[in-house]
């Protein structure tokens, strides 16, 4: 069986090439999907959405009432958070509003963050988080950052709560899990922009809609983690719960959730980081804040301002990541008993925080500098960065341009043409064949139907552009990432640094990656590719290094004992056994590339991502969803085929 495999592949590929080269004149419909037969799914969806808004009714109230109700409910906590952090509590509305209570003084916010850091992780965390927030104040990003923070403060806790509740429900009722799981899988692969379109359509433009979009985006991972961690609770603990006579409710809240606390906390960190990522992106539907600053700067091509806002996002991301990680650790480990008596002694942090807020607020009425960071002390690096960019462009314009053009002419464009010329029917058949060889009939059906979906909804051409950008980016990211992974895997100190770097890179919202690429190469496919590569290189490094590090040291020893050279150990033992992991890394690289690709629509690509982006600007739900689903289809095909390939490889290596 195993040695017949290549022959079957060769035959299939041969048939495909013959079909591609010679079938054109006889079967033009196989090359370009006939327009007359395109299913107008997008229009149907849009019509359905319109019906929902205009006519759908649940008897007592209409669908619009429902969406308005949800907005109104979410608006309350958001208003409180944003009033506290940025606008102050207002009387009246619009420009005639009068501030009755000012927002928290910036010093108080920094102080609170430092107190939180100290409580969760001691002095070093207090200093780090304080420094990150001080950075926001000093570089004039305070107001925007506080708006972003307010959205996260509303969205993240709600995401955790909803995720946990859904997770518990799915854990308790198997049928619900069976419904939810495929949905979660799909939601994970649909690009973020695609979420925004229906949200925009249903909830309008503004911070509340952005919070809703953020919730929709950040909750699924929490559901997944909740289900997984509840399932991971040992059977004996469940038996114990029954044996001591727990009711269902006691079982859930007294046994299961506390026993799963440690892994649930990991979910909390994820929700917070995803919320940050999404709040930035949701600036497109009115979240405001730092994301909007980046977006506005991109539109103006004002690199300095964009980069500054980008740095602010990075500072915020680092602070939130470290704080939530420390919180996860602190809250999941049992706390040493606090033997102190009296409210004062038992809640020192709470009291210190309250005192800080009161004192600084009171002082703020006398000394304005305490309330708002004095403008005179603000540093702006905006002009500096603009000048740097200008300098680079003046001095290296030709070099950069040459690199860009060489890549475009020799790699990007030929590959794009090649993919564009392929017959959709042949590609679909080939994917079906690959699915069959790697995963049997079920996979074959999936890998045939998904490309078919793309073709019949009329997305084939744009899908090929997506594929070309994603493919090239993934290849380049792998070409960079895999060697770095190999190099650092066997050097512990290098690996520690590399790991720190990729961990930090991964906490950054994807928006941030656009700025430097645009600065150097302006808009276009090449710029998009650079941003995608920068974003997608992390998993390639991580999985390669982890795969190599996981190789059993006894095998390396055995290799040494047989007299292998270092090179032979690397190529014959390490890389061979790490292959499945590297394949998974490739898979992740592709997923990352796809999710970033959509965002690069902002720098003028012409793929499915752009389609979603256009749909967003037009609030065209159908168009956005269909394009989003097509991207999801590409992601799912790649994911399933590569995963099946990895399993194949593991079996062949005897690892399974």
């Amino acid at each position: 069986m195993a040695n017949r495999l290549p022959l079957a592949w060769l035959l299939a590929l041969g048939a495909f090439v013959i079909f591609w080269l010679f079938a054109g004149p006889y079967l033009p419909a196989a090359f370009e999907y006939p327009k007359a037969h395109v299913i107008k799914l997008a229009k149907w969806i849009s019509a359905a959405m319109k019906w929902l808004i205009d006519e759908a009714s649940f008897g007592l109230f209409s669908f619009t009432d429902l969406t308005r109700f949800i907005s109104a409910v979410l608006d309350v906590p958001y208003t409180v958070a944003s009033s506290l952090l940025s606008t102050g509590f207002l009387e009246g509305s619009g420009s005639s509003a009068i501030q009755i209570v000012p927002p928290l003084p910036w010093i108080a916010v920094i102080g609170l963050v430092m107190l939180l850091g100290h409580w969760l992780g001691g002095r070093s965390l207090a200093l780090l988080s304080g420094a990150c927030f001080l950075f926001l104040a000093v570089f004039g990003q305070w107001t925007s950052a506080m708006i972003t923070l307010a959205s996260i403060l509303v969205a993240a806790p709600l995401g955790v709560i909803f995720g946990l509740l859904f997770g518990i429900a799915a854990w308790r009722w198997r049928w619900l899990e069976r419904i939810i799981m495929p949905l979660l899988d799909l939601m994970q692969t649909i690009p973020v922009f695609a979420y925004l379109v229906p949200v925009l359509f249903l909830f309008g433009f503004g911070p509340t809609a952005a919070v809703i979009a953020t919730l929709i985006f950040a909750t699924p991972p929490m559901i997944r983690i909740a289900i997984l961690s509840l399932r991971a609770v040992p059977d004996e603990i469940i038996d114990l719960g029954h044996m001591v006579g727990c009711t269902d409710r006691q079982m859930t809240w007294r046994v299961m959730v506390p026993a799963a606390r440690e892994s649930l906390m990991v979910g909390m960190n994820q929700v917070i980081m995803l919320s940050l990522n999404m709040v930035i992106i949701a600036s497109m539907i009115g979240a405001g804040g730092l994301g909007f600053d980046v977006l506005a700067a991109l539109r103006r091509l004002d690199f300095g301002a964009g980069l500054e806002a980008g740095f602010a996002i990075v500072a915020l991301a680092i602070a939130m990541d470290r704080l939530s990680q420390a919180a996860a650790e602190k809250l999941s480990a049992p706390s040493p008993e606090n033997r102190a008596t009296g409210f004062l002694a038992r809640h020192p942090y709470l009291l210190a925080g309250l005192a800080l807020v009161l004192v600084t607020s009171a002082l703020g009425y006398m000394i304005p500098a305490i309330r708002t960071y004095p403008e005179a002390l603000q540093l702006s690096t905006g002009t500096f960065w603009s000048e740097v960019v200008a300098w680079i462009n003046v001095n290296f314009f030709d070099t950069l341009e040459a690199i860009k053009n060489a890549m475009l002419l020799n790699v990007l464009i030929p590959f794009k043409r090649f993919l564009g010329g392929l017959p959709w029917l042949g590609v679909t058949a080939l994917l079906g064949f690959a699915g069959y060889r790697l995963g049997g009939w079920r996979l074959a059906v999936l890998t045939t139907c998904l490309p078919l979906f793309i073709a019949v909804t009329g997305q084939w051409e744009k899908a090929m552009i997506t594929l070309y950008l994603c493919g090239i980016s993934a290849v380049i990211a792998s070409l960079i990432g895999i060697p770095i992974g190999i190099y650092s895997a066997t050097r512990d100190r290098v690996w520690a640094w590399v790991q720190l770097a990729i961990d930090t890179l991964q906490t950054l919202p994807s928006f941030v990656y656009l700025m430097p690429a645009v600065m150097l190469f302006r808009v276009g496919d090449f710029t998009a590719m650079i941003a995608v590569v920068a974003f997608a290189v992390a998993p390639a490094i991580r999985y390669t290094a982890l795969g190599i590090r996981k190789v059993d040291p006894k095998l390396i020893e055995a290799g040494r004992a047989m007299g292998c050279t270092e090179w032979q150990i690397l190529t014959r033992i390490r890389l061979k056994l790490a292959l499945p992991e590297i394949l998974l890394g490739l898979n992740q690289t592709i997923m990352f590339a796809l999710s970033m690709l959509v965002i690069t629509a902002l720098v003028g690509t012409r793929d499915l991502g752009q389609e979603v982006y256009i749909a967003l600007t037009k609030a065209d739900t159908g168009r956005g969803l269909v394009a989003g689903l097509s991207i999801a289809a590409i992601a799912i095909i790649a994911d399933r085929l590569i995963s099946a390939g990895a399993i194949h490889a593991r079996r062949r290596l005897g690892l399974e």
Partner: protein
Amino acid sequence: MTNPEAKLVCRNVWKLFGADAASFLAAHGGHPGAAAITEAGLVGAVRQVDLDVREGEIFVIMGLSGSGKSTLVRLMSRLIEPSGGDVLFKGENLLKVSQARMIEIRRHQMGMVFQHFALLPHLTVLDNVAFPLDIQGMSRAAREARAREMIELVGLAGKERAYPRQLSGGQQQRVGIARSLAVEPEIWFLDEPFSALDPLIRREMQDEFMRLQTVLHKTIVFITHDFDEAIRLADRIAIMKDGEIVQAGTPEEIVLTPATSYVAEFTRSVARAKVIRARSLMVAARPGDAEGPTVSGRSNISEAAPLFLDGVSHLGVTDDAGKLIGRLERDAVVSLMLRG
């Protein structure tokens, strides 16, 4: 067959894993053969188990992994729903009672100790032990007082504030034991309580367990895969294989007359002298035996043997109350020990 002093009775209890096991069982009149089970694509985890656990005894269920012993103990407490049969606890059929009644029974009359301790990681030793009482809704003061008592009983006083992960395996299982005893259960299930411990600690815990039982006189169902442990602790043993009980009886009966070659495999390496008790080897007492040295009828022969070193030719055998019930002759002891 229901023994008047039986606390827990299993009658024709079955557990088949697979689709629609209950109706399959009914279709075969409650006694399907092994072939029929396999043919239906089911797995017979527990098959046709009849047993009764008597008041105050240590009933050991011994079997290798996959023999169904852990499933059986979970059927007894209805942690797993049986496919067929009856489980009577103090005459009440557990399989017929409502969910609420079952919770009531578990809360107040059953205790269970788990192989991997099943301690809640986020609670201190004190809170872990008090947990079953907390679930019942007992006030903090009352449950903590009770928990402290139990912690004292298992010898962990001073560790109340520790968390499970700060304790050794043996200590963790002591917490598990204290917790299961906190509700003063009438029946005490121990599911391989010492299997996860090192051999030396295991021995120590077995002694501790015997000491507790002399104080508490609980009705105990004890699961183990260790035949020596079973012999050491049991009043009666049931040996399981492939979901069935192949033999049930006192340790002596099992060692002396193994029912199948499978049971004989286990008993072969067991020293008879360590299993057979004085009262099984004794002959009728003669007048005057009460004056000489005596030995308890419960002691095994290897414990009684050293008393012969003084040169006596026989020992008086007494019951728990100290009354003479027979005599143990030197020749009988010597010949038993020589046979090994």
